[in-house]
């Protein structure tokens, strides 16, 4: 019962209260800001699955975000696919790339894997930049149609907000189910000690690939949303610094914690908006906040352990004695 109330309040906030507030404050611009936050929340949650929960430090996540965006943009502008098709297509194409690229790298550990992902991210970025014939290179792709439903409603800032909000909530549900379950435990075991996990019967390679695949799917979804809501994308949106931004968000929020990922996204995106004078110094702030968090709050703001404990007590198991220790899935 308590669970349903909490979820209900959250949904009310996202779908009724917030849009109402933003409309009152002037609409347009603020809707675009929250839409961006929504897109990054999806991106951050996906990064959290692979980096926070499974422990695979990915420094190239922006590359996959970019693949999703370009897939959607190209399908929409060249083949005139509607949003309802480009979104899943972007997700699936990105997931496919992710799995393909993950396969040879699963053997790598720690820093080697991190740098390999950095290399992959850069390869993707440079390809987007230089393969002018296909991607239009630095000119980017413009005039990407917004999210609209034929005959029902045209693209608009508020429409985009709702679309992103719905997809973000859906993504949170799916990613939440994956993370807050026994499957999540398996992923956490890979993070904690993958050799030991294997000795205990876990198919570590398969888990890593699955995790990467899911994360890339949602990164692709985020990319598609970005493309459709901003109308214009270019390789500059998907550089290494975007990967770092995402990484900083999950570090600040709490590595391994899904709500933390969203919180991190909110904080690091709101900060430059709220503190307008330092808006230009956005990346400096990001770097500084990340550094301070690692130093003083190594578990982030909403660390994994307390979050898992709370979630289990509210939403977890109730098999007699193991009242708040196990998972329902």
């Amino acid at each position, binding site marked *: 019962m308590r669970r349903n109330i909490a979820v209900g309040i959250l949904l009310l906030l996202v779908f009724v209260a917030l849009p109402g507030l933003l409309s009152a404050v002037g609409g347009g611009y603020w809707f675009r800001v929250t839409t961006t936050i929504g897109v990054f929340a999806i991106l951050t949650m996906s990064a959290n699955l692979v980096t926070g929960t499974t422990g695979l430090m990915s420094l190239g996540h922006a590359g996959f975000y970019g693949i999703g965006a370009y897939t959607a943009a190209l399908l929409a502008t060249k083949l005139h696919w509607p949003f309802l098709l480009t979104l899943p297509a972007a997700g699936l194409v990105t997931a496919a790339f992710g799995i393909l690229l993950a396969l040879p790298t699963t053997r790598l550990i720690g820093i080697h894997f991190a740098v390999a992902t950095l290399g992959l991210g850069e390869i993707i970025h440079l390809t987007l930049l230089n393969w002018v014939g296909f991607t239009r290179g630095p000119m980017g792709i413009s005039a990407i149609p917004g999210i609209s439903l034929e005959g029902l409603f045209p693209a608009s800032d508020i429409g985009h907000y709702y679309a992103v909000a719905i997809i973000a909530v859906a993504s949170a549900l799916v990613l939440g189910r994956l993370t807050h379950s026994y*499957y999540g435990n398996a992923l956490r075991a890979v993070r904690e*000690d993958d*050799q030991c996990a294997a000795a*205990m019967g*876990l198919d570590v390679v398969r888990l890593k690939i699955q995790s990467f695949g899911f994360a890339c799917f949602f990164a692709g979804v985020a990319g598609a949303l970005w493309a459709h809501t901003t109308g214009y994308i270019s390789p500059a949106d998907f550089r290494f610094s975007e990967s770092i931004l995402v990484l900083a968000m999950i570090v600040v929020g709490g590595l391994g914690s899904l709500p933390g990922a969203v919180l991190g996204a909110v904080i690091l995106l709101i900060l430059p908006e709220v503190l307008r004078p330092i808006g230009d110094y956005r990346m400096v702030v990001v770097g500084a906040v990340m550094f301070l968090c690692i130093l003083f709050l190594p578990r982030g703001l909403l660390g994994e352990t307390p979050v898992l404990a709370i979630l289990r007590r509210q939403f977890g198991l109730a098999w007699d004695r193991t009242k708040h*220790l196990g998972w*329902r899935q």
Partner: protein
Amino acid sequence: MSTTILEIRNVSRRFGGLLAVDDFSGSVGRGERVGLIGPNGAGKTTLFNLITGFTPVSSGFIRFDDVELTHLKSFQVARLGIARTFQNLRVMPNLSVFDNVSIGALGELGHSPLAALFGRREQAKAVSQRTWEALERAGLQAQAGELAANLSYGKRKYLEIARALALSPRLLILDEPAAGLNDTETAQLAEFIRKLSNEGLSLLLVEHDMNFVMNLCERVMVMASGRKIADGTPHDVSRDPAVLEAYLGSEESDSPEEAAA
């Protein structure tokens, strides 16, 4: 159904020019408690790593209940029914005791993302049940919610064993289970292991504490320099001159001459 559950035949492991394990042959009987002893560097942990798929075998074969293990990966070996503990306790400190043990259960019962997504409760229930049973067997149910990092050294040993038990293994391999324990704790551990054995589990353990090994094990294999130098009851092995020489060097054989000189 034969009486041997684990068969190791002419197994060698070569690291460049070094033979860490040299033509080792041995076995563990069904329900038997077998000890593996030998001086440091004899190759005991390497042998464990070979059995559990951590290191590839250079030559020879290993069979578990008539299934060829030799080239399997470690997670496949575990799923076949061989669970192990580690010399330098590899407990996952950031997870709770319950979650640690659940890893073993997940290893055997499976970990599919589709199950997590499409919510059929049966599998989760099975994992929870198995985890809880392992915790009770090891006497850790009271600590189930604790963070593993907060557990004392002694309790961590039981945690590792509980995690291994969650795999529902038929063979349990223990790497120096009594290391770092005082006499009382050692005796309790021996009691616990004996109980597990009485419940049908086959055991293979490495230990340096001679009393522990001699009292607990029905049979002892002795390794030195990668080779097996003895295999018999604790009583016979403790009197075997080759074993004594391996442990004490050739000083023993010198002393009579020294005494005479």
